[in-house]
C-alpha cells in the first residue's frame, strides 16, 4: 500500500505540469487559456489526451530507466543471457491497454467532432459573418446588417457567431486560438462553416495559419468582443455616411487614388480593406499596433510611405512611387484616416 502511494506521489509533478499548462501564454492568444465554449471543448480534449499520454510516457520512461540501470554489462561478465523468444501474455497486455486508451480518447474525440461541426448558419439567434481572406488581410461581411469591415471583427459576447469562410486568392486559415481552432478558407465552391462564442468582453488575437505567401506571418486580425448594446451601436455607426476630407484637394486625391480599391462608408470599391472607422481600430495593417507602438496617424504614415516594407508582397501600390503622392498629401490622408472614427454611444 505504502509503495503504491509512493508511485502516486511521483505523479504530482506531472499533474502540476498540466495545471501549469493552463497558465501558459496570453489570455487573448493562447489555446491553453480558452475564452469560449469551442476553445474550452478543445482544451478539455487536450487535457484528456495529455493526461493519457503522460501516463504512457511515465510507464515507458520508468521501464527504460529501470532496465538501463539494472541490466548494464558488468566488467568481466561473459555468460550469455537467456535468449527469450517473447511472452504471449505480456504482448497481449501491451496490445490491449493501448487499445483501451485509444477507445477512451476516440469516444471523446468523435463527440467533439460532431459538436464543433454543427452548422449554425441558419440559426436565427446567431450572428452571421462571411469571412473572406485575401493576401494578406481579412474581410468581414455581416449579411444580416449589410455591414462590411476589415481586420477588426466586432462581435457581441455570449452569442453564437456563425461563419462562412472563403478565400479570394490562395488558401488561408482562420484561427483565433483562445476562441476556437482553425478553419481553412477555400476558394469559392468549397465554402467552409464554423462557429464560436466569446464569453467575456475583450480583444482576441487572430492569425492566418496556412502558408499564403510572403507576409503570411503578418496576416493577423483582432476579434473584439463587446456587449450587445455596443455591438448594435457599432453597426449603426458603420451604416452612417462618412464625410470625405474637408480639404478639397485632399478629398480629390483620396477619391481618385484610394477609393478605386478601398471603401469608406458608402463610397469606393471592395477589392482592398474597408477603411470605415479605421482611426478607431486596434491596429494599422494588422501589425502596426495603435496606442502601443504609436498613434494611429504615425502608423498610417509608416504604412503609406512604404507598404512593402511593412508587409512584403502585399498588393497595395506604393503611394509615392506608383501613385505619385507627395509627402504633404500622404500626411493629409493619414491625418484624415486617423480621425475617421466611428461615433458610438
Amino acid at each position, binding site marked *: 500500500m505504502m509503495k503504491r502511494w509512493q508511485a502516486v506521489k511521483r505523479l504530482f509533478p506531472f499533474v502540476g505540469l498540466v495545471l501549469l499548462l493552463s497558465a*501558459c*501564454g*496570453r489570455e487573448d*492568444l*493562447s*489555446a491553453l487559456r480558452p475564452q469560449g465554449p469551442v476553445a474550452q471543448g*478543445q482544451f478539455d*480534449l*487536450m487535457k484528456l489526451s495529455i493526461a*493519457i499520454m503522460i501516463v*504512457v*510516457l511515465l510507464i*515507458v520512461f520508468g*521501464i*527504460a530507466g529501470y532496465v538501463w540501470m539494472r*541490466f*548494464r*554489462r558488468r566488467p568481466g561478465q561473459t555468460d*550469455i*543471457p537467456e*535468449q*527469450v*523468444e*517473447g*511472452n504471449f501474455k*505480456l*504482448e497481449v497486455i501491451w*496490445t490491449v491497454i*493501448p*487499445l483501451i486508451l*485509444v477507445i477512451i*480518447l476516440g469516444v471523446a*474525440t468523435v463527440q*467533439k*467532432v*460532431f459538436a464543433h*461541426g454543427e452548422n449554425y448558419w441558419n440559426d436565427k439567434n446567431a450572428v452571421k459573418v462571411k469571412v473572406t481572406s485575401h493576401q494578406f488581410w481579412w474581410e468581414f461581411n455581416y449579411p444580416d446588417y449589410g455591414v462590411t469591415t476589415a481586420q477588426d471583427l466586432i462581435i457581441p459576447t455570449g452569442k453564437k457567431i456563425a461563419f462562412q469562410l472563403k478565400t479570394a486568392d*490562395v*488558401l488561408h*486559415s482562420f484561427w483565433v486560438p483562445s476562441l*476556437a*481552432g*482553425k*478553419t*481553412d478558407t*477555400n476558394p469559392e*465552391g*468549397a465554402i467552409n*462553416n464554423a462557429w464560436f462564442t466569446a464569453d467575456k468582453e475583450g480583444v482576441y488575437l487572430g*492569425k492566418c*495559419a*496556412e*502558408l*499564403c*505567401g*510572403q507576409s503570411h*506571418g503578418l496576416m*493577423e486580425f483582432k476579434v473584439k468582443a463587446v456587449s450587445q448594446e455596443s455591438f448594435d451601436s457599432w453597426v449603426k455607426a458603420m451604416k452612417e455616411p462618412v464625410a470625405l476630407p474637408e480639404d478639397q484637394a485632399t478629398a480629390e486625391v483620396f477619391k481618385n487614388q484610394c477609393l478605386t480599391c478601398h471603401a469608406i462608408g458608402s463610397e469606393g470599391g471592395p477589392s482592398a480593406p474597408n477603411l470605415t472607422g479605421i482611426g478607431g481600430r486596434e491596429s494599422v495593417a494588422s501589425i502596426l499596433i495603435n496606442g502601443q507602438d504609436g498613434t494611429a496617424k504615425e502608423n498610417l504614415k509608416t504604412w503609406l510611405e512604404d507598404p512593402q516594407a511593412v508587409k*512584403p*508582397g502585399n498588393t497595395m501600390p506604393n503611394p509615392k512611387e506608383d501613385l505619385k503622392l507627395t509627402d504633404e498629401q500622404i500626411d493629409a490622408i493619414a491625418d484624415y484616416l486617423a480621425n475617421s472614427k466611428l461615433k458610438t454611444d
Partner: protein
Amino acid sequence: MDWLTTVDHKKIGILYLIAGALFFGIGGIEALLIRWQLIKPMNDFVSAQTFNELITMHGTTMIFLGVMPLIFALMNAVVPLQIGARDVAFPFLNSLGFWTFLFGGVLLNISWVMGGAPDAGWTAYTPLSSKLYSDTHGVDFYTVGLQIAGLGTLIGGINFLATIITMRAPGMSFMRMPMFTWTAFITSAIILFAFPAITVGLVLLSFDRILDANFFDVSEGGNPVLWQHIFWIFGHPEVYILILPAFGIISEVIPTFARKRLFGYSSMVFATILIAFLGFMVWAHHMFTTGMGPVANALFSISTMLIAVPTGIKIFNWLFTLWGGQIRFTAANLYASGFIPTFVMGGVTGVMLASAPADYQFHDTYFVVAHFHYVIVGGLVLGLFSGLHYWWPKMFGRVLDEKLGKIGFWFFIIGFHLTFFVQHFLGLMGMQRRIFTYLRGQGFDTLNLVSTIGALLMGVGVLVFLFNVIVTTRKPAGAPNDPWEDGRTLEWSIPSPPPEYNFKQIPLVRGLDAYWKEKMAGHTEMTPAEPVGSIHMPSASILPFVMSAGIFVAGLGFMYHQYVVLVLGLVITFACMAIRSLYDDHGWHIDPEETTEKGVKE
C-alpha cells in the same frame, strides 16, 4: 571513374551516403538560417521571400534528398549481406536509381542560383504553388527535380523488393529474416505504392505551371483540394517509408548490445506490416481543417489513433529485449537508447494530433513542427546515427571513435530536446508555423531564443560526427569481421569491408540470427550451402550516369520551354536505353583461385 561506373551495392551504398550527407548538410544549414531568423521578434536577418524559400527547401531537401538516401545507403550496404546475397537483384538499376536521385537533387538545388528557389512550402499547396502566385521558376524546379529524384527512389524500392524476395540464402525463410531487412522490405513495398501518387501529382502540377493546364485552377473548373489529397496519399506513407527503416536499425542495435535475441520477433514483423497498412489509410488527418466534414474527420481520427497500437508493441518489445540482457552503451547503442524515449514523445503527440477537434488548435502551429521533428529527427535521424555507428566498420573496415561518438551524441540529443520540446508550447500559445517573423510581446520571445540555441548545439553534434568520420578515415583499416563481438546476423560473418563478391560461398541459414546461432553451436564461420566455385559478377557501366544526365538536361529544357534541349536530353537517355537493350553483356567471373589468393581484403 570507378565510382561513376560501379554497380557494386556496397559502393553505391557509399555513394548514397556521401550524397545524402551532402544534402543533409545543405538542409541543416537552411535549418540553422531559419532558426537564426526566428531568434528574436521582428528580426530582419533574411527577407520574407528568402525565408519562404528556406523553409520550402529545408523540408524538401531533408525529406527527399537528405534522409531518404541515407536510408538507401544503409539498405544498400547491409540488406544483401544480411540475406546472404552477392548483390542486389538488378545491379545496373541500382546504379541508375542512385544517379537519377542525385541529378534530381542537384536540379532542385541549382534553383538557388537560377532565379529563385521554390517558395510554396514543401507541401506546395495550390493555388499558392500555381504560376499566378509563385511566378519564378522555383516551383518548376520543385516539380521537375522531385520527379527525377523520385524516379530513383521508385527504382530503388522495386530493386529491393525483388532482391529480398528472390535472393535470400538457402534456409532463410521470411520469418528468419533480420528485422532491418524486414523493414527495408516493407519500406520498399510502401515506396512501390506511395510514390506513383506523388509522380501523378507532380505531373499534374508541372502541367498546370508549364503547359497551362488547369487541374487545380478553380476558375477553370479545377480543384485545389485535389492536390492536398494527392500529396498526402503519398505524403503520409512517406513518413512510414522514413521511420520503418529506423525501427529496423533499432531492432538490430538493441539485441546486439543487450546480447539477447529480439523480444517478440513475430509480433515485430506483424506490427511493421500493420503500421505500413494503416499508414495508407490515414492521409486525410493532415487535412482536418480543410472542411471535409465531421464524418470524415471522425473516421480519420480513429484510424490514425490505431497506429499507436502496433507502434506501442514495438516500443515494449525493445524494452523487454533489454530486460535481462547485458547492456553495453556504445555510441551506436546510446543513439538507440536515446531513440526510445524521444520517439515515444513524438508518438504520443501524434496521438494527440489525431484527435480532430484538438487538431483544429494544433494544426499548422509549432506544436506540429515539434511533433514531426520528434518523429523524424528524434526517431529517424537518431536511428540513422545509431545505424551508421553500428555498420560503419562493416562499410569501411574502421570502427568510429567511441569517445567522439559519445560526445557527438550528447551534443545532438541535448540540442535536439532544447530545440523542439519548447516548440510544443510555442504552438499551443498561438505561434503558427512557417512565419518569417513575429511581433513582440506575445510571449514567444524566450522560447524561440532557447530553440535557436538548441539548434546550434545540434549543429555542433553533427560537426563532431563529421570530425569523427575524418579522424577515423585517416586511421588504417583493421576492423575484425565482428567488431562488436555480439553480432547476430550474416553480415558479421564476413570480413569488414566485405570483398567484392560478399560471400565466397553462399551460407546456409539454420535459424533466426543465423550467425549467432552458429557461434552458439561453437562454430566460427557459417556453414556453406554451395561448393567453392567461380562467381558471376555484373559489369560496371557508365550508362546509368549518362542516362540520368540526359533526364537532367531534358528536365531543364522542359522547364524553360527550350524544346531543343528537351529533345536532346531525351535522345541521350533513349540512346543509352537502346545501347543497354541491344548490346548483350554477360558480366564476368571471379575464379575460385582468385578469391583465396587475393584474400578477403583488397
